[in-house]
């Protein structure tokens, strides 16, 4: 297997996630797109980790960082969904476009 197979798959998923963040207006869907992006990064980390593990058996840094990213993603989704719920409670809608109170 080539390293590039995994890296290109991750690149495609990353770009789909970026498209989702920019094109969607529903708060929950934007968070889902961010999950796609984080997942793409995780595939990269694990692929590079496996690549370096072949030359140095004790080196599992790629996996360790992937685990850290998973944990941070869980925290991010928790806080993000709490924010979306708060926006919904105050405005009866979770359209990102409606949250424009900072505009003068």
């Amino acid at each position, binding site marked *: *297997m080539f390293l590039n197979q995994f890296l290109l798959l991750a690149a495609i998923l*990353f770009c789909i996630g970026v*498209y989702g963040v920019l*094109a969607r207006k529903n708060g929950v869907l934007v968070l889902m797109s961010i999950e*796609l992006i984080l997942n793409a990064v995780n595939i990269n980390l*694990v692929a590079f980790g496996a690549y370096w593990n072949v030359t140095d058996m004790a080196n599992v840094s790629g*996996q360790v960082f992937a685990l850290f990213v998973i944990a941070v993603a869980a925290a991010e989704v928790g*806080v993000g969904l709490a924010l979306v719920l708060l926006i919904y409670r105050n405005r009866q809608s*979770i359209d990102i476009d409606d949250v424009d109170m900072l505009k003068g």
Partner: protein
Amino acid sequence: MLALLVAQNIAFYIIAALMVVGAIRVVTCKNLMHAALWLVLVLAGAAAQYILLASEFVAITQVLVYLGAIIVLFLFGIMLTRARTGADEDLDNSSTAKMIAAGIGVLLLGLLGYSLVDGFRDTEFGNLMVQRTAQVSDSIFSTYLLPFEVLSVLLLAALIGAIVIARRD
């Protein structure tokens, strides 16, 4: 050995195709609940790719944390914000914004793809060995002990923060 490599490649391309289709459906489909379920396909595919990369512990954690916890959180979020369970036409930005977003996505993909193909042209994995969970835990609890502790404090802070933000008072 060769047969195993061919099998790995076939598995990779099937799973990759499923993941890309799932990801495209997540960002285009008109039904919030279906988007969450397509996301399950992408995340499960990622877990399968980790297995192909001989990283068992990350694959299991992916299934436990992403499929088990984060998707459930998303479904809670969708239901608590009382989204319509049927199709909803009002999930996307205007079509101009979508065109610009698609342009940015394609541009980024071209750039990333070019630099990856240019940089790692024929780099192959050597003889992939199973990366043992014992090694992962050794690494976390020795080299990466400090980041690990910081991460647990971050999770606690996020937990308390989410409760404070979302509670009614």
